[in-house]
């Protein structure tokens, strides 16, 4: 019974939230890694791209609910997601046309691209605040829980509660679908293959007749779709605020680097590694330990390695350690 309680406590506070957060990071990191692999620079504007996509989705969601259209037990935002993605695609293609294309033409060094993306980050920062403001926005509707804490306790008679939110399940399912689609596209379609070829060796790809403009366009479209999906899932599960999306940049980059920059599989693994390290390092293990250990060994302290304030420090530390020891990441990516 005590072991059961320990497992439930662990599920409730570590495994489920960690998995949902990991899936959100993985989707974000996939976008970063695609830009790095194919366009060859670190896109600092990615967090704000997510925020823009989410803001657009929220506006459409409000419009839909005002018209009386909802999605039954599921959040209306899922219906609005395609519109958000379309808006983000327009934004990214527009920026590419206005800004990045020029630097590609003059064959600018990657570090210049990074600086340019930082400039775009600031512009998007302002744009998002202009469109939707700086406040906290909660746009989830429909059913909130699949399993409620109280219901679980009453049904099982365990001391520990277990809650499973609808948004957590949606996050995992949507992320799985998005990743499956992406891999099918990269491995099975002609455009996907040409993108991989372009990523592996640009000159060879050009010689074999691949149209670089087409590859760049498709890449931005996929990045827009991934960023918007990641942003909307994060916003549904937590809440939307322009500034927190900007802050997500650090764990997202950490995920992409840990997994191996430019490697999509790595980005997914990296997302979960970062999410679970953040959650487990800052979790107070006292309760779980009390259930598992015999009474004489029950801990006095909280058994917490680090205060929860240091969450971002964990991803930063992992990032630094990986760069020092294994710059190519877990799955062999490009070294930074």
């Amino acid at each position, binding site marked *: 019974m005590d072991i059961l309680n320990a497992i439930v406590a662990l599920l409730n506070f570590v495994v489920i939230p960690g998995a949902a957060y990991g899936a959100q990071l993985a989707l974000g990191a996939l976008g970063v890694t695609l830009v790095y692999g194919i366009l060859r620079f670190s896109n600092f504007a990615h967090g704000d791209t997510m925020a823009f996509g989410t803001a657009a989705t929220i506006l459409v969601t409000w419009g839909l609910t005002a018209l009386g259209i909802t999605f039954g037990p599921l959040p209306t935002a899922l219906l609005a997601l395609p519109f958000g993605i379309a808006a983000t695609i327009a934004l990214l293609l527009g920026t590419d046309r206005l800004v990045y294309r020029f630097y590609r033409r003059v064959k600018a060094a990657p570090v210049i691209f990074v600086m340019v993306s930082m400039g775009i980050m600031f512009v998007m920062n302002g744009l998002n605040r202009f469109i939707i403001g700086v406040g906290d926005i909660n746009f989830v509707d429909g059913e909130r829980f699949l399993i409620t804490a*109280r219901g679980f306790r009453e049904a099982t008679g365990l001391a520990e509660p277990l809650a499973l939110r609808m948004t957590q399940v949606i996050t995992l399912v949507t992320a799985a679908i998005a990743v499956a689609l992406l891999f099918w596209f990269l491995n099975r379609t002609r455009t996907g293959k040409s993108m991989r070829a372009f990523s592996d060796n640009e000159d060879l790809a050009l010689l074999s007749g691949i149209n670089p403009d087409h590859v760049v366009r498709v890449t931005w479209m996929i990045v827009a779709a991934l960023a918007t999906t990641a942003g909307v899932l994060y916003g549904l599960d*937590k809440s939307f*605020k322009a500034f927190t999306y900007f802050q997500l940049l650090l764990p997202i980059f950490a995920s992409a680097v840990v997994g191996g920059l430019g490697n999509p599989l790595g980005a997914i693994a990296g997302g979960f590694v970062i999410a679970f390290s953040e959650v487990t390092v800052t979790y107070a293990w006292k*309760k779980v330990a009390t259930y598992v250990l015999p009474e004489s060994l029950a801990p006095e302290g*909280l058994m*917490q390695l680090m*205060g*929860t304030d240091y969450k971002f420090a964990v991803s930063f530390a992992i990032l630094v350690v990986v760069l020092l020891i294994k710059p190519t990441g877990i799955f062999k990516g490009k070294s930074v």
Partner: protein
Amino acid sequence: MKKLLLASTAVFALGTAAQAGEVIPMGISIGYTGPLESMAPGITAAAEMAFKEASDSGLLLDGSTITTYKADSTCIDAAAATAAMERIVTSDKVRGIVGGMCSGETTATLQNVAMPNGVVMISPSATSPALSSLEANDLFYRTSPSDARQGVVMAEVLQERGFKTVAVTYTNNDYGKGLADAFQAAFEAIGGKVTINAPHEDGKADYTAEVGALASAGGEVLVLAGYVDQGGSGIIRGSLDSGAFETFLFPDGMVGTPLETNFGTQIDGSFGTNPASEGEGRDKFMELAKAAGFDGNSAFAAEGYDAAALMLLAMAKAKSSDPAVYKKEILGVANGEGEKIYPGELAKALEILNGGGTVNYEGATSVTFVNGRESAGNYRETEMKDGKLTVVKYR
């Protein structure tokens, strides 16, 4: 002859001066900009109302009148607050200041400006326990209670309701930490147990990790010393969602209508404390405020009125507007024997004091100073019943 003329002119001049009194410059130093800017208009209106009441009575120091000078203390920027206060003290020569507003900025201006220049400060709203032990040379008082007092009140409420172990989380700033530490000390002193005392940052999207740590430490009640418009509500949401806590204790920063609109019946049985007094003084102040055209319920407005009134009555008792002289009379006016004085009765008080009598200033917030400088503090205990905050009692 010439000397005689001069002398008589001088005597004449003195005579008229004595009759018309002087113009006393007074300062108001609060955060007109910054995180508490929404409270500034209420405090200012209340303090100016007290100044006007005394000026209009014609009884303050032989008919002296008051002009006010305002400084923007910004609440968070101690350097800006010091510069602003330096200006009204050295160039406008104010004799007393209603302010500062927030605890950190108040400490800085007291030590850097008020003490070197010998000016009295009475703060309507700084509540950090740290201000109780500062060396202040009788120049600093506050009409707000110290959070050390609120810590004791919270501990008593928990004890009466039979709770023995609690978890504590506080917003990571001077207010939150001061209150959480004061509460922990008070609760442990009466035999309670605090399983964890952890900070949380405001303005984050996700409090799962914070709630996880609090849940692991355990406790019957979660004491939440935060802001209801900020991380406080996020912590409640996270706790309810994960089933970590169902009962909460809300100190003053959390007692607000968002609790009703966001959570309603989900937090029935949770309870809160915040500084508030009831009775004759409060009612009279509300009427005056309404007549003057501002909201008397605005946080710390009543304290602002009392801060201003106390300085004026102390001047009357000392028969001088010199801060070095009247500072000694402030305690006597607030805690003294004699007729009780409520808002709107400053003229009566001035008359008694001019006649050499004594008064006991109650004001809008039932002022009684403890620890030599701060309001003892009256608190309201509220409980969530059927999704509404209802008053249980005053203590």
